[in-house]
Structure formats: C-alpha cells, structure tokens
C-alpha cells in the first residue's frame, strides 16, 4: 500500500488545504508545503528501506483489484526511472509553492488544493503500470491544471486553458483507442485479457495493426511533449498560466510525454517503433530547429521560454527514438535538466512580471543595474538552457548526440545546428532583458502606472534566493556528477535498449545502485 499512500498524500493534502482557507487566510500555504515535504520524506524512505535486490527491476510493486470484469487492476510499480521523475515532481512542487507564496491572493485555498491534486495526478501517471490506470491519471491530472490556468491565469487565460485541455484530450482519446485495441489484439494472440504493462510487454503483438496502435500512443505522447506539429498549445498556455502553474507545467507535465514514450511505446512495440523512428527523429529535428527559430522572434518573455522548451523537448524525442543506450540515458537526463532550468527561468520571468507588470522584452532592459541578483540567476539559467558544459543540459545533449550520431548522423547534424540556434536565442533573451540601459527609465514608468509613490523594486528576497540557489546547485551537481542518476535509471534503460540493439551487451548488467 506504500505507493497508493504516496498518491493519496497530496490528494488528501489538497482537500485539507482547500478546506482550510476558511480557518485562516494563509493556512493553505503551510498545509501545502507540509504535505509536499511529507510526501518527499515518504518517497525517500520508500527508496531507502526497500530491499535492493538488483535482479528485480521494480523497487516497489503493488496491485489492488479495480475492475475485475475486464481484468483491470490498479497496479502501481516504481523503478529507477519513475523514482527520479517523482523526485523531480515533488521538488518542482516545492519550487512552485515558493513562487506562489506571495503571488496568489484570491481563493488561495482552492489554488493550493488544485496545485496538490495536479501533483497527485502526475505522481499517479509515473506510478501506474496498468494501461487504463495510466490513461485515467493521464486525463485526471489535466483537470486541476485546467482550473489553475482558467482561474488564476493572466489576461487571455480562458482561451489558453481551453486549448491546453482540448489538445491533450484529443491525444488522450487516440491513446484510449490504442490501449483497447492493444488489449483486444493481445487477447486474440495469447487468450489473456489484461491491460497490465508487465503482462503485455512479455508478448509484443505482431499483427499489421501494431504500427497504427503504436502511432496512436506516439501521437498522444508527442502532443504532450510538444513536438513540432502539435506544439502550438504550449506557448499560449505558458503565457497565460500563473507562475506556479507554468513551473509545474514546464518542469513535470511535459515529462509525462517523454516518460510515456520510454515506458510504453518503446518496450511494447519494438518493431513498430523501429518503423516509426526515422519519421519521429525527423519530427524531433524539425521541432528543435522550429522551436529555436520561434524562440528567437518572440517579444513576450514567457512565449520565448516556452518555445525554447519545445526545442529542448525535441532532444528528448530524438533521444527516445534513436533507440540507443546513450541516447536513452541522454533523454532521461535532458528531462531532468530541462525540468530544473526551465522551471527556474519561469520563476524568474514570473518575478519580473510581478515586479514590472510586463513581460514584453522591448520594455524590459538594464535589469542588471536594478536587480543584480535576479539578473545573475537569469544569466546562469540562460546559460544552462543553451547547454553550457558543466551543467546538466550539456551532459544530456551530449549523450543524445552521441547516441543519435551512431544511429542516424543526418538527424544528429540537424540537432547540433539546434545547439547553435539555442545559443542565439538565449543570448538575445539575456541581452534584451538584463544588459543595456532600462528602456523605460523609472520616471516615465511612474506616470504610466499613475500612482505617486515610486514603487521601490526590491531584489530577490531570502526565500527566492534559496530556491534559485538550490536549483543552481542541482544543475551543477547534474552537470559535474551525473553518475548517481545514471545508475538509478540504468536498470530500466538497459532493458529497453537491449530490445533494439542486438549487438548491445551491457557488460555491467547488475549495477549496484548507490545514491
């Protein structure tokens, strides 16, 4: 019952937070942070106390009966990959919380409730082993996020929330059809009706439908991990979402797409993913270039960062579909590093918007003179997003490129040109917002806003400084000492990679996991 309680904790925490607003105005904040810390401690304790027998891949594996009629069970299991991603979820939850501390004022109880429910949904996605359970969590995590964006968003939040929900829902429906088709064909092949991942993975279906079912899954995950043709919801959602929601969205919600690819598409359809891999690598290349070029031309800061994450997630897609051990490690690393760096960038942009009430690059400038600490952080995370060695993003992109060069040099070439474009747009962002002289000097900004008292713009307060510093340290840790993460994720990735590379023989199969 351990994993079920891991999901239950944020759920119940959310209910209490939502209810506690009546008791005291900022009670929800404390309850939410307490609940997150509790679940973080619980997660770490699960990891430490579970008996680490290297033979069995799954750290924890629990099943509860759910719909016996169709042999669907609530089957939760956690392995290295999902452990790392849940850790990222909870940490980014804390970061989102710290950025929401003084920004959210109206209906705060309901806000923190939704916030925690989204996290519970995401944790559910990472833990679900039964395909239908995965689909249920996949859709359920959208509803609270929809509420977050629709109520506390910026000026055009309605359109963005609706667009966000419709895009993912359309993809989700395709996935529902593919799940059912997979289960039915599996039944036809092996006379066992089951939606369970571990049962389905033993006997991959080999009918000619396999290609289309695999495509159904891939489209659902590509819409979520915004790849080229389906990315147009991300910029709108990010510009209109409140900062904590866009932190969670950028840091973790996009990773569910990547996780889905790694967990469900590659192992369940080995030959179909081989069939689709050139097309998908092409899409990845296009989305890297397209995201970078779009980021270059944006004037709205949040849209710029959103397009940059489209380009970064292109690397994840490239990593997943080059079906090579290095590339898979690189893809997982990119998910983590991108999560941290983009969340930090969104937090900074949120702060800038909170202080200057504008996100337009043309009106921003010369922040270094007024807010030195914030600009230093902005510079650091800008450098992280363009893949500066010594930080997590570089290791990820390096591994993805190493993997892809071996498989398909042409796509890798396109991806490396993406590196250059990444430098172009992040430098433009840094230069336009931090360097130069502030375009609207203080006096004319004052008469624009009309109020007499000169609004003193304070730099980062203690809490923000600590969160950002921790994120810098984690990026540097990921950059200079990524080995623990690789060891954690090694087990499941070897299994996936061995499906594709006949020649791939990992000489260190049973790796002792040490954190």
């Amino acid at each position, binding site marked *: 019952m351990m994993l079920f309680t891991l999901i239950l904790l944020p759920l119940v925490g959310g209910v209490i937070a939502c209810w506690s607003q009546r008791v005291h105005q900022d009670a929800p904040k404390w309850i939410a942070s307490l609940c997150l810390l509790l679940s973080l401690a619980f997660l770490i304790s699960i990891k430490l106390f579970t008996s680490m027998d290297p033979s069995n891949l799954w750290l924890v594996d629990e099943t509860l009966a759910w719909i016996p009629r169709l042999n669907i069970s609530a089957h939760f299991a956690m392995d290295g990959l999902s452990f790392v991603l849940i850790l990222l979820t909870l940490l980014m939850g804390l970061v989102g919380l710290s950025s929401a501390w003084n920004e959210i004022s109206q209906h705060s109880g309901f806000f923190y409730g939704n916030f925690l429910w989204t996290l519970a949904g995401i944790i559910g996605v990472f833990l679900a082993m039964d395909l239908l359970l995965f689909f249920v969590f996949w859709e359920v995590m959208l509803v609270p996020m929809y509420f977050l964006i629709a109520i506390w968003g910026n000026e055009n939040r309605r359109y963005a929330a609706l*667009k966000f929900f419709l895009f993912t829902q359309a993809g989700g429906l395709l996935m529902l059809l593919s799940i059912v088709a997979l289960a039915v064909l599996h039944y036809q092949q092996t006379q066992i009706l089951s939606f369970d991942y571990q049962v389905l993975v033993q006997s991959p279906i080999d009918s000619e439908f396999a290609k289309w079912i695999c495509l159904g899954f891939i489209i659902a995950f590509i819409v979520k991990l915004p790849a*080229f*043709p389906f*990315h*147009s919801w991300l*910029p*709108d959602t990010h510009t209109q979402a409140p900062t904590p929601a866009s932190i969670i969205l950028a840091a973790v919600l996009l990773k569910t797409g990547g996780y889905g690819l790694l967990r469900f598409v590659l192992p369940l359809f080995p030959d179909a993913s081989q069939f689709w891999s050139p097309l998908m690598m092409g899409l990845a290349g296009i989305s890297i270039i397209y995201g970078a*070029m*779009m980021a*270059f*031309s*944006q004037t709205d800061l949040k849209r710029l960062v959103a397009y940059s994450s489209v380009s970064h997630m292109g690397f994840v897609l490239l990593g997943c579909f080059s079906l090579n*051990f*290095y590339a898979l*490690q690189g893809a997982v690393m990119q998910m983590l590093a991108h999560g941290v760096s983009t969340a930090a960038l969104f937090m900074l942009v949120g702060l800038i918007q909170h202080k200057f009430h504008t996100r337009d690059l043309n009106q921003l400038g*010369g922040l*270094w*003179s007024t807010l030195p600490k914030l600009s230093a952080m902005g510079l650091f995370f800008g*450098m992280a997003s363009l893949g*500066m*060695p*010594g930080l997590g993003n*570089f*290791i990820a992109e*390096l*591994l993805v*490129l*190493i993997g892809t*060069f*071996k498989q398909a040099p042409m796509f*890798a*070439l396109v991806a*490396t*040109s993406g*590196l*250059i474009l990444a*430098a*172009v747009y992040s*430098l*433009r962002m840094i*230069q336009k917002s*931090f*360097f*130069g*002289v502030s375009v609207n000097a203080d006096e004319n900004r004052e008469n624009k806003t009309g109020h007499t008292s000169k609004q003193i713009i304070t730099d980062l307060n203690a809490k923000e400084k600590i969160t950002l510093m921790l994120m810098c340290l984690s990026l540097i840790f990921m950059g*200079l*000492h*990524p*080995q623990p993460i*690789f060891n954690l994720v090694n087990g499941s990735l070897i299994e996936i990679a061995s499906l594709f590379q006949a020649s791939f023989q*990992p*000489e260190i199969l049973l790796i002792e996991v040490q954190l």
Partner: protein
Amino acid sequence: MTILLGLIPLLPLFSACLLIFWQPKLLLTQIIAVGSISLSALLALILNVQLWDQAQFVLQVSLGQWLSIDNLSLGFTLYLDPLSLIMVTIITCVGALIHLYSASYMKDDPDVCRFFAYLNLFVSAMLFLVLADNLILLYLGWEGVGLCSYLLIGFWYREQKNSQAANKAFIITRIGDTAMLIGIILLFYQFDTLNIQQIQLQSQQLLQMDELPTTEIISLCCLLLFAGAAGKSAQVPLQSWLPDAMAGPTPVSALIHAATMVTAGIYLVARNMDLFQLAPDVLHFIAIIGVVTLILGATSALAQSDLKRILAYSTISQLGYMFLALGVGSASAAVFHLMTHAFFKALLFLSAGALIYCMHHEQNIFKMGGLRKSQPLLAFSFGIGCAALASLPMTSGFFSKELILEQTLLAHQPLLWWGGVIGAFFTALYSAKLFFIVFFGKLNQPSTHNTPTAMVIVLMILMLLSLVGGVQPQGLFTHFSAPADSASPGHTLSLFQHWLPILLPIFTVTLAWFMFIKGYFTPTTPSEGSSVSLKQKLHQFLLSGWDFDRLYRLIFIKPFKLVTEYNRRDIIDLAYRQLETFSSLLYRQLNRFQTGQLRHYSASLVIFCVLAIAWGLIQ
C-alpha cells in the same frame, strides 16, 4: 608533486567562486584575485624547476569521476607533459602579470569584483582546457573560456554595442565549438575512447601500418577539430569576432585576445598532432588557411585607425603564422611562436592600455602624435613590442617567426613561404607605422596623468621577457621529436632564403620611416563625392577586415531574421485557428435549420422518410 598540479587550476576557480558569492571590498578583491593567480604561477614555476631536468615526463592527477556509461567513461583527470607545462607556465605567468596590471587599471570601476571573478574563472577554465586528459573535459574548458570571454567583452553592459560584440563573439565561437563537438563524437566512434593519449597512441599505430584504413572519417574529424580551433583562434572563416572583441577592457584583450584564449586552437591541434598526421590533406589545408589569415590580418591592420583594432588584426595574423607552422607539421615552432607572441603581444596591449589610460580613453592613433617626450617609458616599451612584432633581429619575435619560415621551407612549401614573407613585410610595415605615428610627429593632444607604478613594473617584466624570450625552451624540442621536424636534414636553405627574413624587417622599417616623413600615413578622409576612388574603396575593404561582416550579414543573418519575423505568429498556430473558425462557421449553418416553425420540423420528418426509401430503392 601531483597535489601542486591539482591545485593550479583549482586555486583560481576557488577564488572566482569566493568573489562571486562573497563580493568583498576593492582591496580585498584585488588581494584574493591577484594572490590566487600569482600563487598558481608560483606553483607552475616550481613544477618547471622540478621537472627541468627530465626530458620526457608525464604527471597525472584525478580530481574525481565524472561519468561512466557502457564504454564511455570520463573523469576529471589532469595530464601534464612538456607541451602542457609550457602552456600552463605561459597562462599563469602572463595571467598573473595582467591581474597585477588590471588591479590598478580597474581600481575605479564600480563592479570590479565581478571583473576579477570572471577573470579568475577564465584562467581556471583555460587551465582545465590545457590540462584536460580527455576531449570532453577539454570541451568543458573550451566552452568555459568562451563563456568568460563573452562575459568579459560585455563587461560594461550599459552600452548596447558592447553586449552585441559579446554576443557576436560567443555565437561565432559557438559555431566552431559545435563543429568540434561533432568531431569529438565521430572520434569517439572511430577510436572508441575519448582519452587524448589513447587516441594519439592508436593514431601512431595506424601511422606505422602505413595503409591508412578509413581515412575520410579521420580527416573529417580533423577538419571538424580544426573548425573548432579556427573558431576559437579567429582563423579565416570565423575571425570577424576578434576585432569587435576589443570592446572589452584592455587587460581583458591583453589576457584573452592576445595571450591565452586565442592560443587554445593552436594547443588543440598541437596536442592532437599524431591524429592530424593521419590526415595530411587537412594539415595542408590548415597551412593554407594560416597563410590566408596572416595576409588578411596584416593588410587590414594597415588600414585601421583604432589602436586596439590594429593590435587585434595583428594577433589574427600572428595566429595565422602559428597555424602555418602547424600546417607544415612543426608543432614546436608553432608553440615557440605562441610563447613569444604571448609575451610581446601582452606587452603591446598593456602599454596600449596605459597609453589610452593616459590619453583619457582616446583610441584613435592619428590623434596621439609625438608622445616620445611626454611618455618615455611607454615609448620604450611600445618600441620593444613593435620591434618583436616586426621580428627585428635579436628580438624574441625574430627567432620564432624565422623558425616558422625555415620550417615551411623545409617542408617543401615555397608558395607558403612567400606568403609568410609577404605577411612579414606587411607586419613590419604596420608596426613601424603605428610606432612612428603615435610617438613621432607633432604633439596634438598632451597626455595628462602618467602610468601608475604597478603598471610600470608589469611593463618592465614583459619588456624583459619579450627581449630574452627568444631562447628556445629545451623541453619543447624533446616533446615534439616527431619525425616530421627532422624530415629532410640534407636540404639546406639557399643563401637568399636564409638572409631574406633577417634583412626584410630592417628594410621595411626604414621604408616606413621615409613614408612617415613624406606624410603618406595620413588618415584617408571618407570622400563626400559619389565617385569613390579606388584608394577609398580598397581602404574601406581593408578597414572592415575583408568585408566578412557584410558577407555573413547577407548570407546568414538577413534571411534568418526575415524568416523568423515572418513566422512570428507561428503558422501552425494559425492553422489550428482556421480549424476553430471552420467549426463555428459549421455551427452557424446548422443553426439556421432551427427555425422554430412547426411545419419545417414535420417537413424534415417526411423528407427523411422519402430519402430513406429512395436510398433503399437505389441499392
């Protein structure tokens, strides 16, 4: 001894972090910054002394394990051998001197602490680059150096043009670095390891096997590695960032754009010399690029009027010489020239800095006439610097450049040799021109305050080094006892080929003196009339460094900007908007049927019945 080696790069890194987080007062920052660099310089000198006697030595120290997946295993291990020892000594000594100099040069700048933090970070990144034992750690140092040069060029971030120059520098070097990264990855697949020494060993074995197996992949790797080197050391295709990089403070130009960063490219090629031997056509290509760059640098330096831009173009041309030496296979000549160049170019930059400091930030040479009497020390240091640059006999520049020209001859490359000689002629011409214009002629702007003592000490040391630096460090020869050097002992230089490089500088200096007296060196006023004479057009062409900037703007920047501006609203997004309008259009059409008329509703019932029966009849 290994602890000393480990400490050398870590000391500046530690002091950089200290300065970033603690941001102490002015005096304390100066002490920490200059102290840490001079400490590592001291350690380097100690290492030099200890290892002076051994001819071939290898020192390795591992600072920790970085990454090990499958058969890609990288560690933070530092590797010292004669070549990297020389580089370390150059970097730390010149770095220490420049730190001392900039302590006084930058003392009245508001955020001096940030300046020193970046400078220390730069030196530690450079040290990591030079001491790296695997290519990815080298790449880490490589990008770190690029980052610090970006930060330092854009140090005075208030002016827009500074940060634009910084962006330009970073992006152009980034293009080179990405090419290099591709080269490294291809190397990984070719040699299955990224450790530099193993690559050299495997390439040596391949060389002995004399039937070169997959040559075109290896030559592709070498070409890509050279592209990275070209990006960092400002060679022909990617050199237009160096002149703009002068927007940074002068000590930065001295340290980064003269002594250390630009030499990283040469170090990379020298370090992987055995690999490059496998691809002779790439070496030949490098030599050609070297010659083209040195001619470009020399000619454009002639047409400049800004003091620092002249020195920048001269650095480009001197680097061209080094790559020429590498191209013809003699890495020792290249590294020797690198060392001497580091000394006299640092001297030139620092004295230029002092000069600008005295002429309160006036950089146009035509406005500083006749400073011989008011600034005797600067005149003397500039004289030595220009002499070494023009490679007048008995200066350190002379020995190294003459060695390079000799090596090119030995490698049967007469054409390249003539290129080098022409380059030498132009170098001598512009250095003499620079010297005469600034220090002779009539005094039109009095120099107010004189140079502080710290600067004077540094200039004195550098003057000494650039004079006496000519003696060739013994270790250099043994390291590169590669066969290419002594390939053709029998071939003796003809008399003419021997004496020309020696006499040429003297002849050009006197020629320059006469031209100065006749007044040829007047600034060419931009002509108002439409008929732009050939002279003006040539001058404009040379002034902008063979017009690479306009070329790149035309080919890359304009179309890129056009496409991104056109697509700002994301065509894909508009496609989805069309979907939205289409469905609402459909809604309006269907809603027109809801008329509320009872008769229309019953009519719909009947029509459906008729259609259904008709459908049945048709089947």
